[in-house]
């Protein structure tokens, strides 16, 4: 019932209240009327009957006193006019019925026989009235009247019914008049309710309720409208703030992920989604690990677990992310645990794209570890690899090879064509080398024209084979620069890395030394370092040579050797030799110049050495007048630096005059490369000394192959054909043709030709065929101390 009522509309409720109140008031009125009626009918009847009884009692005193029943009867007859009276009884002094009045309807008397127990009382609808008859304070009898109230009750009820009917009609009329008023009350409420419903369903706060009157409902509508406008303002403000925050969130240049503990993406900002080349809703529900580089997944998971263990701590990692298009980006990730109001635990992951910084640092690291020119690993990085390998090898029985490569004719290219050409050559050589070693072997540029190769898991035989291949490949490699082309050679030293080998520095020294040994043996060779190789063991790196050269100069540790040069056709001439220099170490070991001359040249000591050689040679010649007398010509090497040394000419003049050496017995050998790179100085130098009678010889001719053009401008007397061509003259037709052409050009230009590296008689014979003038080499005579010449 109550809920039925509460479901009713306001209008229906008002109607129900009105109807109910009317019904209630009508019912109440009816009940009250009936009660009142009963009460009133009873009371008035009682009063009437009592009055009647009193009257009759008074009237009957005489009749009773004088026993006159007729009179008494007459008196009672008066009651006959009253319809309600059923019976009237008069009792005498003795208490017995004196006389009675019979009601018309009933035949028998209703009167009790005697007066005993009679009293005024109501018996249902029957009224019994008893009144004693008193005369002079003396009761002389009683009168008893029985009245039936049914009729008056019924009449009164009919009267009540009419009243109620009138009330009902009045109520209905009132209701009909009031019902429209109810609408006036309920309509504003209904309008207000509809407006409120519209606002809440459309979420449009611009609607307003219309005010219809100025009562409380009007106030309510005003208050409602005020409230809605406040809500609208606040809503707008909130929406603005929200949009701002969303814009900040979405455009924040970091990826912001909201994850559950399993890494499922709950939400992500737009920037983050854009970074991964996806839409926000596509990312939702995906696992974050789908976008993490497989090798970083475990790192990321570990970080998440740490976050769960320490809710207040922020953990950071640098992790690679993979975008939809496969692009890898580096992200600096900060993660922490989020615990919301409900206690749910999630993760907040903020990722900053650090790809550029990472690439930069990688580039820096790459640059730090690589050679800018060739792109190969640099010396420092190579050292690290080597050191690691040396450490590793201690725990295993593996064997690796360390190769030290030094280009033989690089200087010529660098000096004749400039550094650009030298750089290009190095680049190309790097490529050639790289394509001829195994993929996992490490190739590095160790500096200048030196390269290093780490061959992993490689026996000595394999290393030798590979190095020999490298050597021949480079030998066959033709470097072209502008309109010229060059051949270069390479000397390779190998040092094996195994359990017995020393540390990285020692290994590098060993390989270096082996490389020098190879160079010393005539370049374009491969030499393997062996610990018991005393000759090699005594060799040290270039840096050590700086100090040793200085000491050698001061302490005269250098000694002069000579290698004979003989005419090819067997003519007898005076002694002709090339002066060579050797270093005698503390133990008396003689060390060839290949070990220290590059160092001398590189560290600007070549001129000093040349001066030492000249002065000592001249002293020796002056001390051996017979030898000098027998001497045809003696050649002395001059470095390129000496040519440009301003003091050198004066020094040589001074030496000539001091020791009285005839100038026509001295020939200065300058390398083709040195001459060309200091062409102006060289010409002046050559002209100056030739003007005094000295001879000049162009050393190592052909190795640079730039020579023919410059040859015209270099007024030399001898051409020394590079031994590299000579030694293979028997097997290599190109070399043969080269030697032949150099020889013929030299002859055409009026120069004598000298072939180097003549190692046997077959070569000698062939040279003879070619018409070369002189020959020099192991096959003719090895270098010996001057005294032994």
């Amino acid at each position: 019932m109550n809920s039925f009522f509460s479901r009713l509309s306001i209008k229906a409720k008002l109607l129900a209240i009105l109807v109910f109140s009317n019904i209630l008031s009508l019912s109440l009125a009816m009940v009250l009327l009936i009660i009142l009626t009963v009460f009133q009918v009873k009371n008035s009847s009682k009063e009437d009957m009592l009055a009647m009884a009193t009257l009759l009692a008074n009237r009957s005193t005489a009749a009773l006193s004088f026993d006159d029943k007729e009179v008494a009867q007459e008196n009672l007859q008066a009651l006959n006019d009253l319809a309600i009276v059923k019976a009237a009884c008069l009792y005498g002094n003795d208490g017995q019925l004196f006389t009675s009045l019979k009601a018309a309807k009933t035949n028998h008397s209703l009167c009790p026989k005697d007066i005993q127990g009679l009293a005024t009382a109501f018996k249902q609808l029957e009224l019994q009235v008893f009144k004693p008859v008193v005369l002079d304070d003396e009761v002389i009898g009683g009168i008893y009247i029985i009245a039936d109230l049914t009729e008056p009750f019924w009449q009164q009820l009919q009267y009540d019914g009419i009243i109620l009917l009138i009330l009902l009609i009045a109520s209905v009329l009132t209701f009909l008049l009031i019902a429209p008023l109810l609408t006036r009350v309920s309509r504003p409420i209904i309008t207000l309710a509809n407006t409120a419903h519209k606002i809440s369903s459309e979420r449009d706060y611009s609607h307003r309720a219309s005010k219809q009157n100025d009562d409380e409902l009007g106030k309510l509508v005003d208050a409602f409208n005020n409230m809605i406008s406040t809500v609208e303002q606040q809503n707008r403000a909130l929406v603005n703030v929200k949009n701002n925050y969303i814009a900040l969130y979405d455009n924040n240049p970091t990826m912001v992920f909201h994850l559950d503990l399993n890494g499922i993406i709950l939400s992500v900002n737009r920037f983050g989604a854009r970074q991964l080349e996806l839409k926000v809703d596509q990312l939702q529900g995906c696992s974050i690990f789908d976008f993490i580089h497989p090798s970083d997944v475990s790192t990321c998971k570990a970080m998440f677990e740490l976050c769960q263990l320490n809710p207040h701590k922020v953990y950071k990692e640098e992790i690679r992310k993979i975008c939809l298009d496969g692009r890898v980006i580096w992200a600096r990730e900060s993660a922490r645990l989020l615990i919301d109001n409900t206690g749910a635990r999630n993760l907040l992951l903020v990722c900053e794209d650090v790809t550029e910084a990472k690439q930069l640092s990688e580039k820096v690291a790459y640059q730090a570890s690589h050679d800018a020119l060739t792109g190969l690993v640099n010396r420092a990085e190579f050292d690290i690899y080597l050191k690691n390998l040396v450490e590793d090898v201690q725990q295993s029985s593996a064997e690796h090879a360390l190769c030290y490569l030094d280009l033989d004719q690089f200087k010529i290219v660098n000096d004749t064509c400039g550094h650009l050409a030298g750089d290009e050559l190095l680049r190309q050589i790097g490529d050639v080398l790289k394509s001829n070693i195994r993929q996992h072997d490490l190739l590095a540029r160790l500096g200048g024209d030196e390269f290093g190769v780490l061959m992993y898991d490689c026996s000595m035989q394999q290393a030798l084979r590979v190095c020999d291949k490298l050597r021949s490949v480079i030998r066959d490699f033709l470097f072209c620069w502008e309109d010229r082309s060059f051949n270069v050679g390479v000397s390779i030293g190998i040092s094996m890395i195994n359990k017995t080998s020393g540390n990285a520095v020692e290994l590098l020294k060993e390989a270096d030394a082996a490389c020098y040994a190879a160079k010393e043996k005539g370049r374009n060779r491969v030499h393997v370092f062996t610990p018991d190789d005393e000759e090699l063991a005594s060799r040290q790196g270039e840096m050590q040579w700086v100090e040793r050269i200085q000491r050698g100069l001061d302490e005269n540790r250098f000694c002069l050797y000579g290698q004979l040069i003989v005419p090819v056709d067997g003519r007898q001439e005076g002694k002709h030799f090339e002066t060579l220099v050797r270093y005698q170490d503390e133990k008396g070991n003689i060390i060839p110049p290949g070990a220290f001359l590059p160092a001398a040249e590189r560290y600007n000591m070549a001129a000093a050495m040349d001066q030492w050689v000249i002065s000592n040679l001249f002293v020796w010649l002056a001390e051996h007048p017979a030898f000098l007398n027998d001497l045809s010509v003696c050649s002395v090497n001059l470095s390129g630096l000496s040519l440009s040394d301003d003091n050198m000419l004066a020094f040589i003049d001074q030496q000539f005059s001091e020791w009285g050496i005839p100038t026509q017995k001295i020939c200065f050998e300058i390398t083709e490369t040195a001459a060309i790179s200091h062409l102006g100085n060289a010409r002046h130098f050559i002209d100056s000394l030739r003007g005094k009678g000295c001879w000049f010889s162009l050393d190592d001719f052909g190795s640079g192959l730039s020579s023919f053009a410059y040859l015209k401008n270099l007024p030399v007397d001898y051409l020394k054909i590079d031994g590299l061509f000579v030694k293979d003259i028997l097997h290599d037709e190109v070399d043969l043709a080269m030697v032949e052409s150099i020889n013929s050009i030299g002859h055409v230009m009026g120069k004598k030709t000298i072939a180097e590296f003549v190692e046997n008689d077959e070569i000698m014979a062939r040279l003879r065929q070619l018409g070369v003038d002189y020959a020099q080499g192991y096959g003719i005579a090895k270098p010996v101390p001057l005294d032994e010449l």
Partner: protein
Amino acid sequence: MSFFRVILVLICFVLAPTVAKAEPSLENKVKVAYLYNFTKFISWPEKNTETFNICILGNNPFGDLLTLLETKKAGGKPIKLYYYQRISEVQQCHILYLPDSTRPVDLAALPEVLVVSSLKNTLTVSSQPSFAEQGGMIGFVLKEGRVKLQINLLVLQQQGLSISAKLLEVAEVVKGVNHE
């Protein structure tokens, strides 16, 4: 006793056809009661007496029944009974009962008698036949065995007595013969 027996016999003779069952004592009882009842329906002018005097003239027909009355009051005064043999002796009576067994009252002389001062303001009652018609005030008559009253209103009013209408209802009002 013999006298009572005679009266009783007489009454029986007289009343025999109608009041067969009526006993003389019951009749007297009723009359005594009526005598007392008259004091309630009739008012007397104020008399200078201390008692309400009921006088019996001649023989007392009621015997001891009357003594009952002396225990009662009338008009605020105690009732006192007086017995007289002669009318000339009668003094200061409120009610005077005239005997019925004596010879009939001299009707011609009676009005004169009645106007004597001694009878002034006195209610005269008697069982003599036609007592009221002959100048008495209230006469007891037997009708259908019942004691009925005859009242001469004129006489009553002449004597200064007032009578209640109620009493008139139950009585038969008669007129005096001589006073028409």
